[in-house]
């Protein structure tokens, strides 16, 4: 496996933003998780050519 070191700062920033939003009481509805993953998966599939 190859570890891409540069991903960790971005991942850390994402997690930090999520913690902050949770502290502020901003909660995403569950359906938003499925829709977000759906859009990421759909665009990702473009690279299967």
């Amino acid at each position: 496996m190859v570890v891409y070191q540069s991903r960790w700062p971005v991942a850390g920033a994402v997690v930090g933003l999520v913690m902050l939003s949770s502290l502020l009481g901003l909660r995403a509805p569950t359906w938003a998780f499925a829709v977000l993953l759906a859009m990421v998966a759909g665009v990702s599939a473009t690279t299967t050519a």
Partner: protein
Amino acid sequence: MVGTIRPLVEGHLTSRWRGILAGVGHTLAAGAGGACLGWIAAWAGGWLLVAILPDPGTRYLVVAGLTALYMLREMGLLPLPVLDVKTAVPESWRAKYGYEVGSLMYGFALGFGFTARTPFSSFHLMLLWLSAMADPLWGLVAGCAWGIARGLPPTLLTLAGKGSDDDLNALLMKRPVVHTVNGLANGLVASLYLFSILLS
């Protein structure tokens, strides 16, 4: 899949509008295929998951935990399996059904998901979240979003003249970046849910 739609859109060399129509039809059909897949996942998958884990909180917790693990998988840190159907839609449909009908058929088949390669965990996790929600309406919505997100980029790329073999090869080289984006999306979803219940 750019290689699939490219001939259908470019085929109308004398009529760009028919090529655009083929692309639009392809995208809408992909949305319809995805909506069917999402509905099935929410209804059938939901029935199964509710039988195993009746409490919705527990279902979401398990799926969020899996989402977090697959974040690590996409980042190359944890070897986990992904159901990748190593097949492709038949190229013969182009010749057999023509441009317009072929575009719709390819779109629907690709939108349905398991008729072509799905090497990214976000697709399977989407189905898991829909199963955990067990709400066919959101299955339709998220499935449609998947289908349109799958059908639209190849259509736009082809219409922008970016469907050559060199362009396709360049697209394939972007796979590591796509895995990173999948990992970040998985991490965002998992941490959104897990931190919200930890801090509530």
